[in-house]
């Protein structure tokens, strides 16, 4: 009887399951049904953004958000390469004039040494409005609606959307001044502080703020009305004009005006968030930014989801109609003239691990996969293949309509020598010793085979570094003219490493024939100082490569903090580093070799501690040149010095790739362009149709499991009964 009942129950459940399957529903969608038809781009984030405050945010994980919410005076053209600045909130490119020490005007081509002040006159676009925000909400009498809040009045509000009223107002030049002054607030610890000290009067502002905080005149945790604090270098002659005065000449400053550090900030927002009870509820500018950008943050659940929705007040901006050669053929100009943004929002879902992310991408629940986001790709071999030196899609990917886009990143990763080292650096006591070391470095530069390294460790995704400037940056040279002639030759239309024999010859000239010191007979042993994420295979490759020229490479693995400390103290010998550009200008790569940026001496970014007066002189001359000037000859000279002296032995530029679904348009794997979301377009109907097709629930496993449970239960019951009766019969027989 029980067995029969169990069978009936199983049949009932199985029918119910099959009936459910008859509904044409997707069961595994991670998104709510009411968002199904919204033009939301689906993206992941795999670490919690630390800062959305524009003066604090500096890392890439935050840039995806901040560049979509805040707008800056200037921004990079989406399609043109090399990267080109264009006006953003500015109405035109700035008019730059120069003054001497006496405040007298200087001609545009005046030598940098004579320039005491650079004046940037920036006209602003009129009619730009901030996103709707409760901080800007005013009542009928014009008073701020959310003034005088406290813990009790805030109640259960934890999201910015919990405030029922919002308001907006026009952007004025004073908002830029306020935003820039915030950089000086000690509490905010802005990473751009040192840089903005180039603005006239900035040091004085910092000192004044610190003094007021110390004297108790200003609350470091509360609202400091920065409108009352003067900053000589930032003037607002009228609501639509901004004037910035810099000390001396620094043409690259304009790139910093394309970063959120200099984004406008309404004073009302700071005042709003400084009210009691706000920080406790995580209602802060760091969590809920306010800007004029194409999107605004409407949901912020850290480690869960972040939603940016279209800013209804976004100014009129259209998709570009001109781009780089080939963009038209690639369909990148198809949306020419369309109003931006073309999507309703971007939904970021927290995805810590690469495997679930990849599976969800294949299900159509993420719109694209970017190699720059997850360091390791879960299924590289099933998705991509290297054919004829290039990357191509596997048949499975093509069948899903997935597109592949690649681009060499404007960034470098490199093996370098600490030039303070006496053995292989420039730290030898005699010129002869230094010359020997240089030859050792040149020999090693030949032996480091980055092509082999990339093919083993990075699936061939990258190109060997030929000089300090990466592709995509002004000053980078292609072809034979761009190779490092000390380590490469040009053969069959491509760079080829010089022979190992040449490297051995250089080593012999340096006094190490067959890798042994000609005087002592001791082997040449070099320490490779790397941190613990370096894989064993990576080390084995470079050890093997150095063995080819009889150099013994000894890896010294340490953890990240100690490794950084080692570099700060200049204690490393041979090591590894990487550099992502702050802005796409050669200055941002060449300054890595300027002696006054030495890591060990000045805590700068010159980790090699390279110190060549000739290079320094050229760099100082170069730094004073306008970004629009012909800088190629001087760049070539500096690049040649770096190649000859070989503080960097070898390295590569990563090839970024992006896999995107057929419903996503205009996307590109460009790391430098964080403003890209407003240019993307989506075909949601196609996304829904395809993902429904790919995600039909398979119900037979459920039926099978239910049937198996029922069968097991029935067997068990039967066995139990037999067991009970068997015992009785056996006893009866006795």
């Amino acid at each position: 009887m029980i067995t029969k009942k169990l069978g009936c129950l199983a049949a009932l459940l199985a029918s119910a399951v099959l009936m459910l399957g008859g509904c044409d529903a997707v069961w595994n969608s991670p998104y709510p049904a009411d968002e199904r038809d919204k033009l939301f781009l689906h993206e992941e984030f795999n670490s919690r953004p630390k800062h959305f405050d524009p003066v604090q945010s500096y890392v890439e994980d935050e840039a995806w958000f901040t560049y979509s919410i805040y707008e800056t005076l200037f921004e990079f053209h989406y399609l043109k390469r090399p990267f080109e600045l264009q006006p953003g909130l500015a109405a035109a490119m700035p008019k730059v004039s120069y003054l001497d020490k006496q405040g007298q005007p200087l001609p545009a081509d005046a030598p940098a040494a004579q320039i005491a002040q650079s004046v940037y006159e920036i006209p602003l676009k009129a009619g730009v409005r901030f996103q709707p925000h409760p901080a800007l909400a005013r009542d009928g009498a014009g008073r701020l609606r959310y003034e005088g809040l406290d813990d009790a009045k805030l109640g259960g509000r934890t999201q910015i959307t919990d405030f029922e009223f919002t308001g907006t107002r026009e952007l004025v030049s004073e908002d830029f001044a306020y935003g820039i002054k915030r950089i000086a607030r000690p509490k905010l610890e802005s990473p751009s502080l040192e840089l903005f000290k180039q603005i006239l009067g900035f040091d004085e502002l910092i000192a004044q703020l610190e003094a007021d905080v110390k004297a108790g005149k200003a609350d470091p945790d509360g609202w400091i009305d920065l409108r009352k604090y003067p900053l000589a270098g930032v003037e607002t002659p009228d609501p639509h004009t901004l004037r910035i005065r810099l000390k001396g000449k620094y043409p690259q400053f304009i790139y910093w005006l394309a970063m959120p550090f200099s984004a406008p900030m309404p004073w009302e927002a700071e005042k709003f968030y400084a009210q009691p009870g706000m920080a406790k509820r995580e209602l802060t500018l760091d969590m809920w930014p306010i800007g004029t950008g194409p999107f605004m943050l409407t949901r912020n659940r850290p480690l869960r989801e972040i939603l940016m929705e279209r800013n209804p007040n976004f100014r009129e901006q259209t998709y570009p109609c001109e781009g780089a050669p080939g963009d038209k053929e690639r369909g990148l100009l198809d949306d020419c003239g369309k109003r931006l943004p073309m999507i309703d929002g971007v939904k970021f879902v927290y995805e810590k691990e690469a495997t679930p992310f990849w599976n969800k991408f294949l299900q159509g629940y993420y719109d694209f996969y970017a190699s720059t986001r997850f360091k390791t790709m879960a299924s590289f071999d099933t998705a991509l293949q290297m054919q004829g030196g290039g990357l191509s899609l596997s048949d499975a990917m093509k069948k899903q309509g997935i597109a592949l886009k690649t681009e060499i990143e404007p960034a470098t990763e490199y093996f370098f020598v600490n030039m303070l080292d006496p053995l292989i650096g420039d730290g030898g006591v005699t010129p002869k010793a230094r010359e020997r070391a240089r030859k050792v470095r040149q020999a090693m530069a030949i032996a480091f085979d980055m092509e082999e390294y990339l093919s083993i460790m990075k699936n061939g995704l990258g190109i060997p570094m030929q000089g300090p400037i990466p592709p995509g940056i002004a000053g980078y040279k292609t072809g034979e003219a761009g190779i490092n002639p000390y380590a490469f030759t040009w053969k069959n239309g491509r760079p080829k490493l010089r022979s190992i024999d040449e490297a051995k010859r250089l080593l012999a000239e340096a006094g190490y024939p067959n890798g042994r010191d000609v005087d002592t007979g001791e082997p040449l042993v070099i320490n490779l100082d790397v941190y613990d994420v370096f894989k064993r295979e990576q080390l084995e490759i470079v050890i093997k490569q150095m063995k080819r020229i009889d150099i013994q490479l000894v890896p010294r693995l340490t953890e990240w903090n100690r490794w950084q400390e080692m570099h700060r103290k200049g204690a490393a010998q041979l090591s590894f580093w990487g550099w992502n550009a702050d802005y796409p200008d050669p200055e941002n790569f060449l300054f890595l070799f300027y002696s006054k940026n030495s890591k060990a001496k000045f805590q700068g970014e010159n980790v090699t501690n390279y110190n060549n007066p000739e290079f320094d002189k050229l760099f100082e001359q170069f730094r004073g040149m306008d970004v629009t000037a012909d800088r190629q000859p001087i760049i070539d000279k500096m690049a040649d010095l770096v190649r000859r002296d070989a503080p960097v032995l070898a390295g590569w530029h990563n090839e970024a790739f992006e896999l995107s679904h057929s419903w996503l348009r205009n996307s590109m794997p460009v790391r430098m362009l964080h403003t890209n979301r407003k240019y993307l377009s989506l075909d949601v109907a196609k996304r829904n149709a395809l993902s429904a097709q790919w995600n039909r629930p398979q119900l037979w496993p459920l039926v099978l499991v239910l049937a198996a449970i029922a069968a097991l239960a029935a067997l068990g019951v039967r066995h139990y009964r037999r067991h009970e009766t068997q015992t009785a019969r056996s006893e009866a027989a006795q």
Partner: protein
Amino acid sequence: MIAYLIRRLLWALPTLLGVNLLVFALFFVVSSPDDMARAQLGAKRVTQEAIERWKADHGYDKPLFYNDNAQGSKQFTDTIFVQKSARMFLLDFGKSDLGRDINHELYARMWPSLALALPVFIVGLFVAIVAAMVLAFFRGTWLDYSGVIACVVLMSISSLFYIIAGQFIVARTWNLVPISGYEGGLDSIRFLALPVLVGVIAGLGSNVRWYRAIFLEEIGKDYVRTARAKGLSEGAVLFRHVLKNAMIPILTGTVVVIPSLFLGSLISESFFGIPGLGSFTIEAILMQDFAIVRAMVFIGALLYILGLILTDLSYTLVDPRVRLQ
């Protein structure tokens, strides 16, 4: 019993202090306040001046355990250890190194962690007990042998494998539930079904084997023979007598983990995208946020002590012979 409880709670204080001390020592062996400042301020363009300011703002500019420059008791109290630890005993965890309120975060993340851990615990316990009872009932048969083999196989597989295989088979191939993610309310069932299933299966092997051994031990005792001699059915013997008496060792292993359920699971939450305390802790470790790491270890220790006390109390409930003195 009250005296016993008070004594146990008082013992908890030095234990917690010791745990805190150990965490401090271990953390600062690998990470100095300078390193912490760098981790928070970013790797680029960080000046020593900014680092010093960060340390002063966050209270890391003092000596770790002993302040040479202070006088009297301040030599001990004006240190990072005391300044950062004292408030924790009042369950005020202050702000994270990033400046966010830890208590607020703990409260918000506790619920998703519980939503995953509680069903895994209850369903896992129920399934394991039932399965162990069945194996004990069929002891010595092919079902028992194959059950034990299955348990050993289940025990031998890494929990990470269950997660990846579960996501691939159930969510990716059969498309029955989302691979990862989280929503509140009733919708959470869709997101929690797979992690709960994986959690239950991952813990099944060891639990079933252990409970089976307990049941078998009980089955061999005299009172069971007496029960059978009374003419009770095997089912009644197992469920009414054996299960009751086997509860003490089962309780030892289960009640102790109940408070820790709040802490969540590090791996599961990370893979299934559940915004609980497990993923919160992992993120804090990666970001070198000492304030959060310290708070989580403190809470972990506190809950563990609480679990041990609860275990002792539960003995008195299931075995009237046990008295707490």
